[in-house]
């Protein structure tokens, strides 16, 4: 509870600053309109006008809220104007890609932990790949897969998978290595096989690391799906809404899509956080 008041204060300050910025950035257009009509405009007249522009430079928070509400609840969810529809298009690609990337990442991590040659040859590249702007290859993957006849969900999912893959590999390798020498020695005195060591010690010990990297991975997967929608000619999805909005100057539409994406990201991360808490508590690892 102690944190609620400061957070609300900060949010209130942000909203207030946003309103001030909206007035300041939208005012030139209103002044321009007034000058063209040959009338003088006072600040008191100008103020309400900056709040209700059709295509504001910066939409006021309530305009975004209205746009968001109409997009989420004001349409049938199958409508092309519905943010639920576009959000689902993006979300399904995100989830599919996340599942592929996580599975592949965990498998590779298991291989790396159990094979020294694989560890030495693959691990440096997995770490180095995190410093590379992987997102830059997104347009290429889409176009190339399109030209070999794969389109729709899968190309976006592959970009998402690629982005969530490396955080999972790095985190999972760290996790599978986290049991200390004492614990590994204990299992050796029990004459435990490698498989038993893996299932009974390494895998349970890696869970906190896995969940931490899953949170990073799913946020990255969502970014990947959104960026993956940009070069396909803006058909459907949140990325397409962003691109259409920027083509046609529909700023409210951009902000509404942006907030939908933000809520989706927050919900996904919170979901994994909830699964993490439940799992770790049942495993007796909760702090």
């Amino acid at each position, binding site marked *: 509870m102690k944190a609620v008041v400061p957070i609300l204060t900060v949010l209130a300050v942000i909203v207030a600053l946003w309103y001030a910025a909206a007035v300041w950035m939208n005012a030139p257009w209103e002044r321009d309109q007034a000058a063209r009509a040959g009338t003088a405009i006072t600040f008191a007249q100008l103020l309400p006008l900056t709040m209700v522009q059709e295509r504001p430079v910066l939409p006021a928070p309530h305009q975004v809220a209205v746009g968001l509400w109409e997009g989420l609840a004001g349409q049938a969810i199958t409508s092309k104007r519905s943010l639920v529809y576009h959000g689902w298009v993006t979300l399904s690609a995100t989830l599919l890609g996340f599942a592929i990337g996580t599975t592949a990442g965990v498998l590779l991590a298991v291989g790396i932990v159990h094979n020294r*040659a694989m560890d030495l040859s693959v691990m440096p590249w997995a770490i180095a790949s995190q410093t590379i702007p992987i997102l830059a290859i997104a347009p*290429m993957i889409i*176009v190339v897969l399109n030209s070999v006849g794969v389109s729709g969900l899968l190309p976006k999912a592959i970009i998402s998978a690629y982005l969530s893959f490396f955080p999972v590999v790095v985190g999972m390798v760290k996790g599978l290595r986290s049991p200390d020498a004492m614990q590994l020695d204990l299992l050796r005195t029990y004459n435990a096989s490698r498989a038993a060591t893996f299932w009974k010690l390494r895998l349970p010990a890696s869970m906190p690391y896995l969940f931490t990297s899953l949170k990073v991975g799913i946020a990255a997967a969502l970014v990947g799906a959104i960026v993956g929608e940009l070069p396909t000619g803006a058909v459907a999805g949140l990325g397409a809404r962003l691109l259409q909005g920027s083509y046609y100057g529909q700023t409210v539409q951009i902000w509404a899509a942006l907030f939908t994406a933000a809520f989706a990201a927050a919900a996904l991360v919170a979901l994994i956080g909830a699964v993490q808490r439940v799992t770790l508590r049942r495993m007796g690892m909760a702090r």
Partner: protein
Amino acid sequence: MIWLVFAFGFWAAAWALNVRLAASSLMRSRAGRLAVPAIFGITLLVVWEGVVRGLAVPGVILPPPTAIAARIAAEVPTLWLDFVQTFVKGALSGYIMGCGAAVLVAIAIDRSPFLQRGLLPVGNFVAALPIVGIAPILVMWFGFDWHSKAAVVVVMVFFPVLVNTVAGLAASEVMQRDLMATYSASYWQTLWKLRLPAAMPFIFNGLKIATTLALIGAIVAEFFGSPIRGMGFRISTEVGRLGLDMVWAEITVAALAGSAFYGLVALIERGVTFWHPSQRH
């Protein structure tokens, strides 16, 4: 067919070599530890080349590495122009502004626990959001040139660095702060001589995360509109023209620039935080 056999033969041989190297005593030397990943990387390139040539994959789907290398050699002036536009003007200037602002804001809110309790959850929340989405808005505000790219980069790097710096400023121990108090050190002296140095490992952690974000932000922002140069512009137009070898050339440059940028920051970190356990080995 010969190419395929050669590629897989090379792969098997290199893997056998790596397995033997990994088990040998060479691993205790630095050169040995570098050799294994290097061999693996070369193997990937050879297999790529062999598969593309062996299966006669058309260049518009996947060009072989030699074609990409030839394109890089032939297009150095264009690549350099794009590099300057995207990396030096867009990413680097945004990175410096964003990280500088984040550290300053962290120091500014440091004296107010109230602001910290309010700003940190918000900052953590924003750091997990798909911030690249604001690119179209900022391109609309700041125009097509590098200013809008720098603005995207500023927003992208700000929150990770802010969160890390605030965490870092809390990292000095009570005992150490008490010692400064017994010296009757002022707030600024304590900050400058104890808390900022103690925060450096955290700050550099944020700075390293931000290097990748900066390059991603600058490239993706160019997908929303740019002058007729820049890495993101070149990638999206060459993809449209199916000039895939040029796309790969740009990606190579981006990868090299990203790694070099990260390496540079890591090098500075080693110089600044030489006292930290993670740097002493």
